[in-house]
């Protein structure tokens, strides 16, 4: 593909690298682009990536491993789209995604991205774990296989396989059982939702996953979906319609809020804790849902909800989006976004850092350990906080 064939050939040159893409809403610093915060080089900022993409597609620079790493260090957090003052801002991530798609087609992706995508091709998850083990997290929980219940509880790859995120998946399942929600899971029949595959630019693999999932959901008579992960929520809500899959979908924080409001989930037991909440990018900036998780936390007596300086539209990404929870292009430094984020959380005086995404959970919990903050700050999923309040382990 040449620049002339690139879908965004008419707009990509309009970025003049004003640098606004790196700011949070209140302009307090220039570190709200996770990759820029990590490397502090213009090439790793959104503007840098756009200029490099244009130079690569114009044959002004050759492809290199370094160029690929720079493009894949973007976590798809959309901070740039939030802050860019130009009209093309709605397409900024699409521009990166299209450049990645070209790298995928040429086979020129970083080794970690190749591994991620090959694992999804073969095993239906980025870890390369066996498909038949996908449902093991729900053993001895009483959670049933989906067979026409009101909700399909879609767990996603991280919740299904990551040991820590499995705990969250189990707790949410038990909370839903306690609330009397009619739901089931797909277990070993569940497949990757493809959200990260799409972000990594593997369009055909994403199409295949979406088509297979839509077919499966329809065959099973799925009417409503509730997701553990905001990444799955985003794919089902915004991308599956193209594949004839318009299923009503909720992120679990929205369902928990409704259950509390309707009196079906009793959180009156309360919890005495100062809690700060980290917005996941795929729930917040991608889908505008900032309130539901806060409403759940605020409904719990005894919880003092305090905000980090960077919150809602200004949230600093945990660094795990766009497959980076696996590819880890932003790890290994005290400037890794997850570490910056947990330091910020600690300054609020909160003892609990609440998350609503299994990717954020794994990234931020590791960062708490790396920062030596284990005695001050515990990372808990919103569902786990609710579970604790309800006496569910």
């Amino acid at each position: 593909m040449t620049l002339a064939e690139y879908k965004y050939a008419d707009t990509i040159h309009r970025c003049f690298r004003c640098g606004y893409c790196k700011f949070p809403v209140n302009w307090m610093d220039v570190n709200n682009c996770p990759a820029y915060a990590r490397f502090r080089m213009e090439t790793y900022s959104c503007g840098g990536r756009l200029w490099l993409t244009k130079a690569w597609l114009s044959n002004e620079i050759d492809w290199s491993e370094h160029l690929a790493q720079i493009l894949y260090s973007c976590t798809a957090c959309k901070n740039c789209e939030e802050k860019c003052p130009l009209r093309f801002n709605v397409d900024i991530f699409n521009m990166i995604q299209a450049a990645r798609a070209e790298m995928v087609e040429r086979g020129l992706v970083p080794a970690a991205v190749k591994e991620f995508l090959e694992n999804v091709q073969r095993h239906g998850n980025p870890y390369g774990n066996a498909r038949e083990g996908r449902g093991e997290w729900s053993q001895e929980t009483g959670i049933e296989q989906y067979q026409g219940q009101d909700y399909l509880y879609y767990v996603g790859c991280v919740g299904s396989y990551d040991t820590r995120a499995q705990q969250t998946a189990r707790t949410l399942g038990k909370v839903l059982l306690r609330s009397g929600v009619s739901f089931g899971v797909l277990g070993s029949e569940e497949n990757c939702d493809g959200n990260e595959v799409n972000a990594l630019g593997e369009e055909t693999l994403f199409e295949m996953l979406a088509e297979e999932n839509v077919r499966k959901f329809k065959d099973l008579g799925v009417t409503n979906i509730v997701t553990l992960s905001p990444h799955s929520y985003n794919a089902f809500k915004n991308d599956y319609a193209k594949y004839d899959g318009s299923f009503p979908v909720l992120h679990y924080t929205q369902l928990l809020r409704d259950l509390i409001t309707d009196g079906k989930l009793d959180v009156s037991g309360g919890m005495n804790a100062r809690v700060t909440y980290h917005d996941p990018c795929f729930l917040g900036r991608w889908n505008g849902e900032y309130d539901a998780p806060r409403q759940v936390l605020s409904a719990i007596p005894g919880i003092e909800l305090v905000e980090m300086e960077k919150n809602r539209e200004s949230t600093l990404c945990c660094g795990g989006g766009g497959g980076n929870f696996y590819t880890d292009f932003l790890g290994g430094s005290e400037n890794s976004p997850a570490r910056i984020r947990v330091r910020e959380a600690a300054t609020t005086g909160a003892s609990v850092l609440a998350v609503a995404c299994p990717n954020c959970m794994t990234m931020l919990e590791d960062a708490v350990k790396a920062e030596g903050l284990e005695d001050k700050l515990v990372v808990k999923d919103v569902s786990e906080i609710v579970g604790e309040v309800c006496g569910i382990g």
Partner: protein
Amino acid sequence: MDIIACIKRIPDTSEADTIKIDPSQMSIEKGSLVFKINDWDEYALETAVQLKERTGGSLIAVTVGPKEWDDVLRRALAMGADRAIRVDQDMVAADCHSVAIVLAALTRSLPYDLVLCGAQSEDFGCGQLGVMVAEMLGVPHAALVVGLQEEEGKVRVDRELEAGILESYTIELPALLTIQTGINRPRYISLGGIKRAMKKELQVMSPGELGLTAEMLAPQVKLERLEFPPRGKEAVLIPGTPEESAEHLASILQSAGIF
């Protein structure tokens, strides 16, 4: 340069605990396994594709196996092979000699300057196939190649010896090389690329078409049974918190005289 790349389809055993031996003890249970190109062969393919990109000529990917092995040839076509040939014969997995007879016969029927094989397979790991084919063809070979530079009518190759020592040769073409992992970084094969490669030619031949009879392919190796190695008794799991287990481990190492 005209190149032939020999590839094998093997089970993905990255999850070792998913491997189970079937009741006959002659095979593993394949029902839930996924299959892929043998790792070493993927490096050989990448080497072949890069050579073709630099020198022109043709690249043919070949394999010996039943119909389901077509999937690895499709991936080879997506990677850059011009065409693919599968010799339709379900070989005894461990019998490199018979596979080598088939590959040698097939190679003789094709134009080639260079034959590339992976240095070994991930499943049986014999490491003999490429060298046997070279001997049968009567062409020079080098095994465990980690570097390759083409020259007029010959190739310069680096072989990997122990302790990081490299051995360099100039080899007249036609020749056969077995490729070691790490010689390059095999490209990603996109699903779109595989779909487009469906249009490329994938030829299926029988051993008979190559003049081979059942007697000629009689296995030289008889598989008696598969079994897992006996579990070791020396492993010790050290329980406790990281601090406790580190202290315990240190005392074990100290009493063993390691420090």
